[in-house]
């Protein structure tokens, strides 16, 4: 009896895989455990093993092709059995040449980010960097690191699996080959120790970039980030600075439950002495990581795992860099202001798109930096729209949205036509079950509801 071999999901965020090569060919007999093929996921190249014995009857996906998870990639038949006719004549999967995955978060609607970007986008007052090219956030970060490593010999990257493994999320892909072991440094799993070491090196004038495999693990090192990195300039009366970047994926990925799905935006934004950045697009990622590395202060750079594989247009100009502390108006509107950062900008754009169909024009502000916070852009927008909704994945209590609401009430109270609204993650540890996880995360529908309540 013929069985289908499916493209397996080999990581929590993998939605698509690229067939790198077939190890077995049509007609080969296989037993359970034999390696059939190699597949490249969003994180690594993995082997696909046979789970049954039989003969590899037909290969449906050729090497070099990318297909979504659960797509049949081959047919396994019992030894001696023929491939059924309806399968033998089935056309092969369409060839898709992109090697980068184009994952969409489960909760996102079908409208793509690129589409949203085309709708009502103005570049606000930002410098026009000219020509752009589509690039994933992951590659944008990788490029920013490479450029800054090239530019300044005092810059080095350290963290778990950043070197030989090429990055747990492939952000540092190729850097070891380019810059060598002196500057791309694998650490043991010892966050507290290696963070302290990096901060000490920064006190001595080096410019470390510390990668946390995820920001969840930085809690082991938070004393060094807050008490050593953020406060020493002040405590030393300006003598000892600390030029360092702490970066890694922050917030929820997908189905990794409570200890690996927390947003630390409000934690770090609370600390004087730190700068905090949360990029959304590839341009944000590249322009701001370059700025963060050059900044003479400690910068916490909160990335998002789901966004790593997303493509956005990114300026190709080799001098492209963005200022820290400047928000970007991603979409102009007159009826309500959405304030969001990181992946919540995607939600804001989706909600704006949905509301546009009903004649409500939302202005979407991508904060980019959380500390310093560009309150000027927020206040200007609210004075125009008279309504504000903040959107974030983190918890509502003492969250970034709380700060935005406070700032708006302090600086634009008389312009408000409705109380500020917050759309946030549910006030619970992140559940594992798919339906509960979906309920725990903010979505465009909630934003639309919030707007309708205030109109």
């Amino acid at each position, binding site marked *: 009896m013929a069985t289908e071999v499916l493209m397996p999901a080999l990581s929590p965020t993998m939605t698509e895989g690229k067939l790198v090569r077939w190890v077995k060919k049509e007609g080969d007999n296989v037993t359970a455990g034999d390696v059939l093929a190699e597949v490249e996921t969003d994180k690594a190249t993995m082997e696909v093993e046979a789970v049954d014995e039989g003969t590899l009857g037909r290969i449906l996906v050729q090497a070099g092709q990318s297909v979504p998870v659960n797509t049949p990639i081959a047919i396994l038949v019992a030894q001696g059995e023929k491939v059924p006719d309806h399968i033998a004549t089935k056309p092969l999967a369409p060839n898709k040449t992109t090697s980068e995955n184009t994952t969409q978060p489960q909760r996102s609607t079908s409208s793509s980010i690129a589409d949203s970007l085309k709708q009502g986008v103005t570049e606000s007052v930002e410098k026009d960097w000219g020509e752009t090219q589509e690039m994933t956030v992951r590659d944008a970060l990788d490029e920013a690191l490479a450029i800054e490593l090239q530019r300044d010999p005092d810059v080095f990257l350290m963290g778990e699996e950043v070197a030989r493994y090429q990055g747990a999320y492939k952000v540092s892909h190729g850097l070891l080959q380019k810059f060598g072991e002196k500057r791309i440094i694998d650490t043991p799993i010892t966050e507290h*120790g290696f*963070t302290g*070491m990096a*901060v*000490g090196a920064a*006190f001595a004038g080096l410019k470390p970039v510390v990668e946390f495999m995820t920001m969840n693990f930085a809690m082991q090192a938070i004393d060094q980030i807050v008490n050593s990195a953020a406060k020493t300039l002040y405590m030393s009366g*300006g003598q000892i600075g600390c030029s360092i970047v702490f970066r890694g994926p922050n917030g929820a990925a997908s189905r990794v439950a409570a200890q690996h799905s927390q947003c630390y935006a409000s934690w770090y934004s609370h600390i004087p002495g730190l700068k905090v950045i949360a990029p959304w697009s590839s341009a944000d990622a590249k322009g701001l990581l370059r700025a963060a590395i050059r*900044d003479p202060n400690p910068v916490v750079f909160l990335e998002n795992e789901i966004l790593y594989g997303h493509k956005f247009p990114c300026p190709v100009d080799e001098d492209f860099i963005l200022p820290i502390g400047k928000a970007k108006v991603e979409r102009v509107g007159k009826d309500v202001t959405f304030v969001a950062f990181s992946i919540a900008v995607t939600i804001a754009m989706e909600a704006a798109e949905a509301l546009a169909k009903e004649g409500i024009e939302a202005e979407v502000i991508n904060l980019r930096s959380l500390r310093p916070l560009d309150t000027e852009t927020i206040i200007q927008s609210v004075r125009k729209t008279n309504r504000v909704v903040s959107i974030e994945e983190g918890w509502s209590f003492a969250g970034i949205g709380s700060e935005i609401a406070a700032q708006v009430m302090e600086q634009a109270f008389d312009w408000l036509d409705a109380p500020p609204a917050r759309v946030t993650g549910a006030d619970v540890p992140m559940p594992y079950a798919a339906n509960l996880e979906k309920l725990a995360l903010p979505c465009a529908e909630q934003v639309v509801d919030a707007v309708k309540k205030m109109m």
Partner: protein
Amino acid sequence: MQEVGQQIGKVIGQQTGQQIGKVIRSETGQQTGQETEEGFSKEDRKLLTRDQFLNAYREMLLIRRFEEKVAQLYSMGLVCGFCHLYIGEEAVATGIKMSLRDGDKVITSYRDHGYMLALGVEPRRVMAELTGRVTGCSRGKGGSMHMYSREKNFYGGCGIVGAQVSLGVGLAFANRYRGTEEVAVTCYGDGANNQGQVYESYNLASLHKLPCVFVIENNRYGMGTSVERSSASHNLYKNGEPWGIPGLQVDGMDVAAVYDAARKAIAYCREGKGPYLLEMMTYRYRGHSMSDPARYRTREEVDHVRKTHDPIEHIKRVLMEDDGVEENVLKTIDEEIKAIVNDAAEFAQTSPEPESRELYTDVVLEV
């Protein structure tokens, strides 16, 4: 090494105070039998020249008189907050300083006044920091626990117990990254020694063969908890062994012994062999901080160490007995130190407080 361990176990145990002098050195810890001065090595007296001993005497006396003045100003409400004095431990910072060369870096805990002075920071600026004046080394924003000197390569002054250990490894990392032969001396107490990041730091320093001298200032009490009540390992100098870090136990009350051990450890690091661990057996005469009544030990224990194993009295004796220095020479130094300390105290009381606008400076560097 086994014998040493047993001996130390005894010392750290019940008989503490009475025995401090006897054991304190792993290599030459033989008893001298003198009633007035227990356990100081006769051999170590030959390690320093007359002038070096005189300088050490001056440095250590400065630290002691300075700290005594701090205690006085504290009782008058002029120095406030947490304040940890270095009295009794002067030989450690002084001996280490003597073994350093330009460019070497030092970091320690909140018990940092002694290091600032030993490294040559002006006493006026240290005292003015303690009174919270703008003329202080951190412009009045750090206080007792947060003193730094970029000029003297002193990186604090770390208020979080044990955090300076991984920071110190980072200083050593920077030395190695730049390809210099400079070392980083990372000091912490027997209490900090129980922090997890200390062992993470041993591992990292050894993995990367970093030029880091770990210095445990074992004054035998982490606040009020004695070493035997807080550490299952009673031979702290051996704690780096699993990571291949050689260790040495040193009489931290004997400035010559400290100098000799630090010199050896620093030479080892400079040669690129990796980190080295020194356990300085020392003693603080005062409480952990100004607010510590020190009821966890007896008056007799403290008095005994003071009488029989005081680091400054020891140098004085060496200078007079071995080097024929006249008492009036030492008296002159005493007078000079007294004048320096009084001047610092005066300066610290008459300097202005930081202006209000200083509240918002030095938070972040402008780009």
